């Protein structure tokens, strides 16, 4: 799976939780999940669990803690695939 495909799936997942409208290519690898997408930090675990389901991977607690930006999520997934 290419990086762009992973990014697209990650954006789809994040859009379920985001309090701001996600438009077209507004999301980059540097986009902060908490600050830019206004997602409650408590939902980060749900997001990572959605990553696990969508990509059939397993993420441990410490790796999940490292996810702060969209790029962190994408790179984490790519490392596990």
């Amino acid at each position, binding site marked *: 799976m290419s990086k762009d495909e992973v990014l697209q799936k990650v954006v789809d997942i994040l859009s379920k939780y985001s309090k701001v409208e996600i438009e077209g290519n507004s999301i980059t690898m540097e986009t902060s999940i*908490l600050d830019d997408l206004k997602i*409650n*930090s*408590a939902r980060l*675990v*749900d997001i*990572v*669990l959605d990553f*696990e389901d969508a990509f059939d991977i*397993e*993420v*441990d*607690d410490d790796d*999940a*803690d*490292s996810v*702060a930006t969209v790029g962190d999520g994408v790179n984490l997934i790519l490392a596990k695939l």
Partner: protein
Amino acid sequence: MLDLKFRDKFALKFQHMVGWITFPVWGGILIVLMRVVGRYRVPELRAIRQKYKEVKRATCGPVIVCSNHLTKIDSAILNWSLASVWSYMKSFKFFSWNLPERANFYHSAFLKTVCYLGSCIPIDRGGNREAVRKSLDKVIYLLKKGHTVTVFPEGGRSRTGRVDAEGFTYGVGKLVNKVKDCTVLCVYLRGHNQETYSEIPRKGARFYLDMKLIKPTSDHSGLRATRDLAAQIIGQLTQMEQVYFATSRQ
């Protein structure tokens, strides 16, 4: 794997010791403020303290106190309700550590001092992940050393006035998952005139307090276990709230 340095552990021990030595003074002042200025009462105080004593006797491992959260001084009311000044002086490990949000409590020297003496570890909710992890590492260290820690599993004061069974945080699940053999004392605390969340309870509040000891377990592992364990605790608090409204608000 805990990432605490010797100086972090020493700082916690020092804070605990200073809190204990000075407790008769600041603990006494806090109780007077609550009783005289707030006119707060806990009608079943003696029975509650007896029950807490029995709970502590029945558990040999670490205990996490998990309570619903409606006001900024819930921790103080909990500690006051659960044991006497004398009991805390005999065993200050009974006095629960707290995790107040830094933004709410660490903006003045006075509050910082109160929090320091009152066994608080500031946490930056939604802030730097590394800083949050370090705070949680401190809590895990303390629990493993047999201290008591209070956590509000909803992650903040409930905006609806009821236990938030939808938007709760999973931090407490992570603690239970990481600290083997820990038990959870679920506490439902509410002033009789507390309709929703507020800064402090209304004057003259009479507090209802119910507690139940549980040992959450999960068949899952990792993050799913974290979520599952947190959900069990919230489920217990929700049940206790239903009992409260069925029996005490009729």
